């Protein structure tokens, strides 16, 4: 009877234990954390779908702010997601649609080409940094590289607006300035996040492919010409 009672309430015996002041108590007490976390998880089942989506969107937006203001915080690295990169990549590829002459060998990059360049490019850069001995995980690096496309996506949107104005020389200069600035910004932001994970004598080896990657994307954006 007593044993059954004990087994049903495993911590019942602890209630009699009194710890006097002179016994040093060490270690972490992690018992109360578990149930409360479980409660949190349960509560997401009850909440409206809108709230769940909004929370994820807020997390994505929060990371956008991190890219815009790249201080060396690990928030972008700690909880990675690929929603933001997907969103940015699709937006960029859609904005690059409809360039130049169609069905011709001379045309600009198609949707699939942009998509493949961005994803394979970031995968290759990530593999490169892992092979060089980086301590960052695979998806963290993908996440950072994807989020840091954001300045270039913004530049692409600006370019499409500027291209509505017919004056070609002025619009070219404006586009050149915008794209160069956003290219620098992307490289700087991703370097701020990625370079720390490398041993100091290999930083340049990791930064160079990132530079090349954003340079190629910037080139695609700058040379975009819509069909008249």
């Amino acid at each position: 009877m007593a044993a059954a009672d004990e087994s049903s309430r495993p911590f019942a015996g602890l209630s009699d234990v009194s710890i006097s002041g002179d016994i040093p108590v060490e270690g972490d007490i992690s018992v109360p954390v578990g149930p409360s976390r479980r409660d949190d998880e349960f509560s997401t089942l009850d909440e409206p779908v809108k709230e769940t989506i909004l929370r994820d969107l807020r997390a994505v937006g929060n990371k956008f702010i991190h890219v815009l203001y790249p201080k060396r915080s690990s928030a972008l690295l700690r909880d990675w997601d690929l929603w933001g990169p997907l969103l940015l990549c699709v937006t960029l590829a859609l904005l690059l649609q409809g360039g130049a002459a169609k069905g011709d060998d001379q045309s600009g990059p198609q949707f699939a080409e942009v998509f493949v360049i961005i994803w394979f490019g970031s995968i290759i850069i990530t593999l490169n940094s892992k092979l060089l001995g980086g301590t960052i995980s695979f998806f963290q690096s993908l996440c950072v590289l994807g989020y840091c496309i954001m300045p270039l996506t913004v530049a692409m949107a600006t370019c499409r607006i500027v291209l509505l104005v017919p004056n070609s020389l002025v619009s070219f200069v404006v586009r050149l300035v915008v794209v160069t600035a956003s290219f620098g910004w992307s490289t700087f932001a991703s370097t701020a996040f990625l370079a720390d994970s490398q041993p100091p004598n290999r930083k340049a080896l990791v930064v160079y492919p990132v530079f090349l990657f954003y340079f190629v994307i910037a080139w695609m954006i700058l040379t975009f010409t819509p069909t008249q």
Partner: protein
Amino acid sequence: MASTKDPFEFQEFEEAGSLLEADRDAVTISIEDEKPRQAPGVSPDEEHLDSDDKTELLSGQKKSTPFWTFEYYQRFFDIETHHVKERVIGSMLPWPGKNFIHIYLRRNPDLYGPFWICTTLVFAIAISGNLSKFLTSLGKSGYKYTPEFPKVTIAATAIFSYAFLVPLALWGFLLWRNNKIMNLVSYSFMEVVCVYGYSLSIYIPAVVVWILPYEWLRWCSIVVALCLSGSVLVLTFWPAVKDDHPKVIIAIMAAILVLNSLLAVGCKAYFFSKPEPVGTVAPLNEGTKTMPATLKPV
């Protein structure tokens, strides 16, 4: 996430690298000199250190991790910034008697340089070819700028197949000759790939020069780049074939040089063709004529 106490293996590699570095200052010319040097007149302490270094290096080399593991490929990226710099500069400045593999690679061939040099060259060719076309047709009526994105794919195919298939053939040939005639020098496949990859680095500045629409300037830079990269290749592979029949030596050196110049001239003809007065279709036709020539030996 940059935890300093991460027990990662590069610590060990780094040490090996620094020991190699120390070695490099001591040794003057080639690997063969290294072995007799260690036998006589070394203080016991140093000898101990050296043998430690030796066993460590040997164990690093002998440790045969299977090729599907990540660690296998990590060996080819065990390289630091200053190594890459030295190798690129070394591949641009050939010097008689200097063997690129012995001086710069030192039994540690890397894939980082060849891969990123090829990638850079692909985009450099595509972008500067596009720019030069834009500059030559600037101000002509009826010209409409196009990014010519598909040329990136063609450039990538041509350059990557040159940089990996030609070394494969050359390595196979050297292996075969090595069985017939005992050569003192034999190169591994990675070393051959590495030399070929780095020998392409001179073309990157050359291709940027090609943007300017002056034919004489382009041909000058082609000749300079061909001489430099060709002589690096010849100087490197000379010791491996020098004991062979003269006919074989001439054949293999000619093949190396001809393939190298085919790549350069083919790229020049395809991506930087003279603007034809007929229209934009002409360069394409010319390209279809020249491209198979570039790809044929590969």
